[in-house]
């Protein structure tokens, strides 16, 4: 295990300093990746100020994996329908979005960078958390309550590795963290505001492709331990169903393998390596389906798993 990094973090910058650094390019680390973001948009500065305080701040001349720049297209429409572009080393990767969506766009752009580039990992669209060195992988389609469950567990004794991108090392099947803010949608935002004590959120952004979005601060300890990998121990497909009792059902491993593969970004790209790595993960993991409606019951079930030898 790598030691916890002790260098400066973004929290060492005042909001004004952060804004100045962003104007010419702010370099920071998230897990295994370094990012340079150039951006002079207030909502992005504010989002980073609130949610990236624990992320390691790097020198301007550090090696950068992903060069991102956000800017407002210089068209007449900037005056009556302001938009924002995200450029990956000079090339637009998405259509421009309304300016109000700038911070979520940054988050999506960083997801895009990892999911489209980091092919030395098997990448699964899943939340992943760790406790006692063992990781639980929560793959699920949008709307299954995965991020809500992840946010709750991350504040009740589990270490957040990622809420969207489960990165699995190809040689040993271990999970490598990308600790970042947790993306919550629509009703989940209110649920977590009520569930957590004084949660820190980014401003809510309405009318995005996913509805209303807000990002929740990742616990500082999880960000600081961004270099500590974990061995998979459970693969659990969660499903929120209103009024449902808490129900943990074992799942055949072959079935879990197939469904996990369907949630992978680069399973077919990795060919045999993807199959073998997924096999390694499934081999090391207990596989379950989990239906729930009450977060406290869910936490009890996960704590029960963590207590097993």
């Amino acid at each position: 295990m790598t030691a916890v990094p002790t260098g400066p973090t973004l929290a060492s910058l005042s909001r004004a300093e952060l804004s100045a650094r962003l104007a010419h390019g702010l370099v920071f680390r998230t897990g295994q990746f370094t990012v340079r973001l150039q951006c002079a948009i207030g909502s992005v500065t504010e989002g980073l100020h609130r949610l990236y305080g624990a992320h390691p701040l790097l020198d301007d001349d550090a090696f950068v994996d992903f060069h991102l720049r956000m800017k407002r297209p210089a068209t007449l429409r900037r005056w009556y329908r302001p938009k924002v572009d995200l450029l990956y080393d000079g090339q637009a990767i998405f259509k421009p979005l309304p300016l109000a969506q700038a911070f979520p766009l940054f988050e999506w752009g960083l997801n895009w960078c990892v999911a489209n580039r980091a092919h030395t990992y098997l990448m699964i669209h899943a939340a992943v958390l760790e406790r006692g060195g063992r990781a639980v992988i929560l793959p699920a389609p949008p709307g299954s309550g995965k991020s809500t469950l992840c946010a709750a567990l991350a504040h009740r004794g589990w270490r957040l590795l990622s809420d969207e991108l489960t990165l699995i090392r190809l040689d040993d099947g271990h999970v490598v963290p990308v600790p970042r803010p947790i993306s919550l949608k629509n009703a989940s935002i209110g649920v977590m505001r009520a569930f957590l004590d004084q949660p820190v959120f980014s401003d809510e952004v309405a009318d995005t492709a996913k509805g209303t979005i807000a990002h929740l601060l990742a616990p500082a300890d999880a960000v600081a331990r961004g270099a500590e990998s974990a061995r998979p121990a459970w693969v659990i497909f969660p499903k929120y169903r209103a009024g449902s009792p808490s129900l943990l059902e074992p799942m055949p491993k072959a079935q879990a393998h197939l469904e996990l593969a369907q949630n992978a970004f680069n399973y077919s790209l990795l060919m045999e390596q993807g199959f073998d790595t997924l096999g390694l993960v499934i081999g090391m993991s207990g596989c379950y389906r989990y239906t729930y409606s009450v977060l406290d019951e869910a936490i009890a079930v996960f704590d029960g798993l963590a207590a097993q030898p």
Partner: protein
Amino acid sequence: MTARALPLAVLAFRDPSRLVHFSLAEWELLLRQSAAANLQARLYALLEERGELAAIPSLALRHLRWTDTIARRHWRGVHWEVEQIRRALSGLGQPLILLKGAAYTMAGLALARGRLYSDVDILVGEDQLDQVESALMLHGWVATHLDDYDQRYYRQWMHELPPMVHIKRESAIDVHHAILPRTAPVHPDPAQLRAAAVAVPGHPGLQVLSPPDMVLHSTTHLFFDGELDHGLRDLVDIHYLLREFGHQPGFWEALAVRARTLQLERPLFYALRYCSRLLATPLPPEADALRNAGRPAPLLLAVMDRLFERALLPVHASCSDAWTGVARFCVYVRGNWLRMPPLLLVRHLFQKAFLSPKDVPEDPPGAEAEQARP
């Protein structure tokens, strides 16, 4: 142009022995330039061939491995796709002639390692176009570019059918009946290209162009085309083809004869010139005859040097100067000028600028929408 002023992505292929001496900062810039030029996977292959993967900074090597993963998948995908096309067209009773990337891969050429593909290109007789199109449609490929103008553009003026895409695999195929548009001023005889095509050892039913024709097609593609987004990648392709075939006895003489017969001396001249000037491609004394065959007038050549030595560089901010935008625009107009007579060109550019729907990047996202496709 002095070697000192060349971008790192050019230097890397011009003098690969320098790669292991680049600093971490130089590597970061080289990775960015080579990604913009679609040459990152080729760079990995180059280092692998030289046994130098372990000698470069691990942070840079990680990026190259990421891209190499994609290249390996593409390599496998092309084999699969070519086999599907061969089966779909087996009823025609003709060998399947592959062009460009798919040809390099199936023929096992060195430059195929580390090449990324967007489509498979094939060459068929013009009299077989209808049969080929129907056979492909029966096997799941569907036409794209369905608007009336594009249909007319391809079918009446171009040298290929509108690109087709497989409805399930989303793989693209370009069906060519010639290597230049009908509207271009020269018409390299496709029947001669097909007649000289050679079998691919180990792949019955497949053919690729003969070595001189393969070089000429690659040079024609690069120096008749207006869009040089992958200009350096295409030039590096030619660099590798010349190095691979240049050792075969009689290759350079055959290339000279073939360039004259097919009226392609001018693009070949440019290819050899910029391969030599940018990439220091070794040209033996036998190639001397070619150096002058298609040479333009001195003034024109001076202009072309200034245009191409900008437009052939990676599309990246670090490779641009104040004139790069102008140079790319001139090359775009020139490419279209060469492909169409003036009035038709004016009409085409007007249509593309003001009437046709624009190409736009994908909708944003959510990570779940970003499934990486091979």
